């Protein structure tokens, strides 16, 4: 890592695994449950959050010395809201169908705990470059989990990935009937499309992660 010092690199790498916003800090769960039924939506959500958190962290970090601490939450909200509106408008302009799938959850990025959490915990106390790295790192960690969950939910729930029928066609043409795995009698798991299953998938990720890294297990 010639580009980044070791300390800076850790800002990006830590949130990917050992300090992951979703699996370790348990933040941003609502959106992880709500929009991960499709991989595409997960990816778009991850990119949106990365945009908002990356830029938001820089903006807050630049203003950190002039924000009166009594009204800092309001200021932070204004910054997030402005960025989220930009994301929302871009999605509506260029990916209307997708923005309908994501519906209210784009707007709800404002209330995503990860964003306010990083503003409060990091951007208010660090310079813009480090804040930017922190924002990118955390949204990477968030996006990674979203994409893993979205991958399994779409694959097992709908039998597709990004809309492609990777497991074969459940209906198929009238002559051949179902193709691929479906010809063998496989069926999609409808439970995967329901939100509780997203919680269980996140839970399994947390389980696997903690059993691999014993340092993460809390003492009680």
């Amino acid at each position, binding site marked *: 890592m010639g580009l980044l010092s070791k300390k800076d690199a850790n800002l990006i790498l830590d949130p990917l695994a050992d300090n992951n916003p979703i699996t370790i800090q348990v933040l941003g769960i609502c959106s992880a449950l709500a929009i991960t039924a499709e991989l595409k939506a997960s990816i778009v959500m991850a990119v949106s959050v990365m945009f908002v958190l990356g830029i938001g962290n820089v903006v807050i970090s630049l203003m950190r010395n002039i924000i009166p601490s009594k009204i800092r939450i309001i200021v932070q909200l204004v910054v997030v809201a402005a960025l989220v509106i930009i994301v929302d408008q871009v999605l509506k302009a260029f990916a209307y169908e997708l923005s309908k799938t994501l519906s209210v959850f784009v707007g709800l990025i404002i209330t995503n705990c990860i964003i306010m959490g990083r503003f409060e915990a990091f951007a208010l106390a660090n310079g813009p470059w480090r804040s930017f790295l922190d924002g990118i790192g955390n949204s990477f960690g968030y996006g990674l989990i979203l994409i893993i969950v979205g991958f399994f939910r779409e694959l097992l729930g709908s039998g597709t990935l990004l809309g492609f029928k990777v497991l074969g066609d459940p209906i198929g043409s009238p002559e051949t009937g179902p193709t691929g795995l479906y010809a063998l*009698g*496989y*069926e999609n*798991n*409808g*439970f*995967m499309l*329901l939100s509780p299953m997203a919680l*269980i998938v996140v*839970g399994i990720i947390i*389980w696997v992660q903690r059993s691999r890294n014993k340092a993460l297990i809390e003492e009680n």
Partner: protein
Amino acid sequence: MGLKNTLHNLKEKYKGKKMAPAFNAIHTFLYLPNETTHSGSHVRAADDLKRTMNTVIMALIPVLIFGMFNAGYQHYSAINGFPADFSLLNDFLTWDNFLVGLTTVLPLVIVSYVIGLAVEFIFAVIKGHEVEEGYLVTGMLVPLIVPIDTPLWMLAIAVIFGVVIGKEVFGGTGMNILNPALTIRAFLFFAYPTWMSGDKVWVHEAVERAGTADAISGETILGQLAQNTDASYSISDMFFGFIPGSVGETSTFLILLGGLFLIFTKIASWRIMLSAVIGALTMGLIFNGVVSADWISEGSKFYGLMSFEFWQHLLVGGLAFGIVYMATDPVTGSQTNKGKWYYGFFIGFISVLIRVFNPAYPEGVFLAILLMNVFAPTIDHYVVQSNVKKRLKRSNKATA
């Protein structure tokens, strides 16, 4: 004694190694262990966990056998029409009927046990604890509460899910919040609803024959009622179980015998069973009252189920089976005697409530029991707290 010695030697050889729990389990399952407790105080009791489990399995065997005969009976009746003058020996207890049941139900039993025990063994080896007997009953309950033609791979996935997520993540047998068998059933219901509901899944081969000239179907009584048609089975058919349904749930008579056996052997709580029956009857009476007060028109989609005689709710669907074999699970149910009354009552009450109002699937026993499983610790907490408060008051009065 060759096998016993081999197992014992294997056990000694692998003592302290990773695979030890697996050999221990096979050994103690087949034979009495060689070890005896030699220090500390201990109680000699015959009813260990394994024997408790075996008693429940014994209570389930008649239901299983009946389910096999009924599978064939429903299958042939759907094809040839129900026999005009039914005789138990000539029409029901026939070799043909049993053969259909054997070839459809036995694979379910085998898959359930093989997959479930494999998961248990793997977890025991990973975690380094002994294999627990908890799956013995679950493995027998699972094939009894699924439709007859459930694809085996679906059952296998559901069993893995139920045992891992329903039980092992909480720490294994005795630590689970939800009844594993019902977790498996709920998983199947939400994951593959087309295989779990409708009028095609309850009779063997009905799914394959759908859309062909040989199409057969067998709507359950609850399914008929949900469509506002009258049940086409007599009360005695319902009671003795000559009706379509999941494999083991149909015969209220045999379930009743099994329940009495469990109460007599003090394995299951009569408080839970009785209060659940009272709860179901209460809810049934409320619905009957709504109908007789003319608060609901005959055109309403709930009319069929709401006007169903309140006591007949006990005879159809999985209510009786759930109350006797599932609600009484000592791990997931309430522990306090007073709590058991509340716990059971709400199971019956909510079962009938869901059964009537569930738009997609006119049955709710498994959902009601899972819901009350979640609330059982809360109920116990308040029962204990109220007792603490009562005794505190009494002692304060005595000292004052």
